[in-house]
């Protein structure tokens, strides 16, 4: 039993580190370090740098332009990216729709869509949730009715992340009302420029419209944009939801943030003549967080080791999701606690690109509350943590 990397893996780790130091643009690094949001151009620029290096799609097979890395190498790559603060690709194209197209799409669809995803020429967004279909996703109502060579789509999707940037949306639509709800769903790719689509931003608690509602009013979609067979969409969707939950635990990001917590705690007075880092109560809780991060890291490594010897990713990813998100949220609380009064100024502009005024509050303390608010999403999205517990209940405990 050992958690060591091989010499080849260590060399690769070194290569990734050097690449990040040399190639991750300094202006983006500065933004990340100052908690300034990256905009679309920033993210696309970084993705194209990765593409040039041949590292845009670590989890794709080589034949589609992936890296062909082992699970361990993919893990090393994600870890180094996270530790350095380099953003992961926006998952909707690369990690969500692409695997579905690869598995169930036609040859033509693969050639049409995959290269643009790989090169970050097309921005994808997700059309899953609806106002009345959240955790019970299969009860979705957005309808697609076949008329000749087209589907006519009516309905609305919500919690559509960064759809304001998107060129394409992948949607689950209802194509049969007369059967069991899971059996009447199809998987449809829709061009966001199609007439009849309107997009309405939803401003979240941190003041940023990170998500949208998308309305479909008699939107005509070519039937060739259907993935696989009609009414089989639920099967494809489930594959997507369980596919490649690499880095779901967020350990590297957790490590980065732990370091930041310690730094800020050292610089912050506790009001009783010591620093927050020396404050008995805070110190104890900080230690608990660090210990939890270790337990999480080794749980992830155990999962990874199992994957590496060919075992299927099981309900372990549910554990990683629950523990990882709860830990991240605990850290959010601690950032707020450290910031104290300094998290009160609501000046979201200063964390947006292009802000050149005087920031209020020391360092990034004013972002603490905003991050805390925004990250409440972590335990809700991607299958709420309660849904993850249902998965464990069924798949592991057999209840």
């Amino acid at each position, binding site marked *: *039993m*050992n*958690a*060591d*990397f091989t010499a080849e893996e260590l060399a690769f780790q070194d290569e990734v580190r050097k690449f990040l130091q040399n190639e991750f643009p300094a202006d983006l690094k500065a933004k990340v370090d100052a908690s300034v949001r990256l905009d679309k151009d920033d993210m696309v620029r970084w993705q194209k740098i990765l593409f040039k290096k041949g590292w845009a799609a670590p989890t794709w097979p080589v034949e589609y332009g992936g890296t062909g890395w082992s699970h*361990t190498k993919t893990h090393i790559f994600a870890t180094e990216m996270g530790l350095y603060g380099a953003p992961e690709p926006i998952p909707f194209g690369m990690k969500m729709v692409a695997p579905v197209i690869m598995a169930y799409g036609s040859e033509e669809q693969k050639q049409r869509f995959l290269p643009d995803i790989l090169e970050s020429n097309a921005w994808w967004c997700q059309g899953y949730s609806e106002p009345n279909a959240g955790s019970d996703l299969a009860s979705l109502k957005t309808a697609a009715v076949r008329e000749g060579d087209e589907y006519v789509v009516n309905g609305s999707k919500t919690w559509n992340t960064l759809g304001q940037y998107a060129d394409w949306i992948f949607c689950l639509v209802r194509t049969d009302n007369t059967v069991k709800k899971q059996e009447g769903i199809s998987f449809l790719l829709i061009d966001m420029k199609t007439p009849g689509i309107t997009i309405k931003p939803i401003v979240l608690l941190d003041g940023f419209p990170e998500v949208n509602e998308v309305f479909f009013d008699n939107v005509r979609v070519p039937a060739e944009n259907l993935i696989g067979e009609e009414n089989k969409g639920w099967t494809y969707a489930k594959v997507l939801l369980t596919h490649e939950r690499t880095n779901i635990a967020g350990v590297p990001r957790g490590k980065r943030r732990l370091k930041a917590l310690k730094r800020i705690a050292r610089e912050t007075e506790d009001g009783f003549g010591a620093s927050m880092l020396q404050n008995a109560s805070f*110190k*104890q809780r*900080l*230690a*608990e967080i*660090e*210990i*939890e991060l*270790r*337990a*999480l*890291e*080794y*749980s992830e*490594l*155990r999962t*990874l*080791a*199992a994957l*590496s*010897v060919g075992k299927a990713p099981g309900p*372990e990813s549910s*554990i990683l999701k*629950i*523990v990882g998100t709860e830990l991240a949220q605990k850290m959010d609380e601690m950032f707020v606690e450290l910031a104290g009064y300094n998290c009160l100024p609501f000046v979201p502009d200063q964390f947006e690109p292009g802000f050149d005024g005087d920031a209020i509050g020391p360092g990034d303390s004013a972002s603490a509350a905003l991050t805390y608010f925004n990250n409440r999403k972590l335990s809700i999205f991607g299958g709420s943590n*309660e849904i*993850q*517990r*249902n998965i*464990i*209940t069924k798949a*592991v*405990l*057999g*209840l």
Partner: protein
Amino acid sequence: MDFSYTEVQQMLQDSVQKFVQKSYDFDTRNKIIGSETGYSADNWQLFAELGWLAVPFSEEDGGLGGSAVDLMVIMEEFGKANLVEPYTATAVLGGSLVANLATGEQKETLLRGIIGGELQIAPALAEPNGRYNPASVATTATAEGDQIILNGTKIAVENGPNADILLVSARESGEIRDVDGISVFAVEAGSPGVKIRKYRTVDGKQAAEVTLDQVSVAASNRLGEAAAALPGIESALNRSIVAVSAEAVGALEVLLQKTVEYSKTRKQFGTAIGTFQALQHRMADMFIQCQLARSIVIMAAMSLDSDESSVEKGKAVAAAKSRVGKAIKSVGQESIQIHGGIAMTEELDVGHLFKRVTALDLAYGDGDYHTQRFAAL
């Protein structure tokens, strides 16, 4: 990276499992606890024959050169069986104190006795006011000619009632909690001035409060060098902490499994209680706790087997004990709660496992103590 057991570890696991299945059911365990000595001498001889008592020791010390991971494998199975034999006291903590501190000559007799199953050891480290800090030693050791005179009180001396030898930490110089000045002495249990107040622990093991009143031992009973034992004690404790943490992981796993099984058969309101989501999610959380505890014990065992610094090892072990303590409280309490009243009775093994893991939480420092230790290191 590889988290699978080696062939030898697999064999070790199989052999402990086989023993437990054949010779350690609930009733047998209760009989052993109720016996005069509170452990089975036959089992102990079997442990010696099977080589389990040799696992913790290096080959040059006459052992099998077992790693911390090997020890973890054994202890997890012991934990599942809720074993009461004093393996940790004699072979792990006691044995490691000898292995870490003793001279070659001392090892010769003591380790041979331990490995052969002829010698029972009781490490006597904890004191009434010391909590879990091994440096908090008020027991004194004063030289008088060739003899050393020991005075003090030791508590929670595991295996005290059955021990041939007590391994007593005592202060030769310095103030309480000073790092320097501590030695460990091998004291024969029957020595004049040694008073052993036996008791059975809440989890069915044998322990004692030991008072030392002008106990005279030869200077040659001091293990190794004078006044420099603390690092060796800490290292022995690190190993023991991994051992009891692994034992807890085994016990917690059984608690989870029994709770889930029970929830499938116990019917209320016309249906199995396991169909209630309020209970399902709590059992899912128990599973998560078990997995995190297992992960962090593996981390700590691998750290002890690595060439990391002693500070890193200490941190890894403290992290494990802290995290396992949390899992113990939640899985232990939930298993009682979900079983309901039946788990409050002596007739179900669930309550006994609950008591065991509660004692394991305290062993060598509870979760809070080790969280503090982690933060301080």
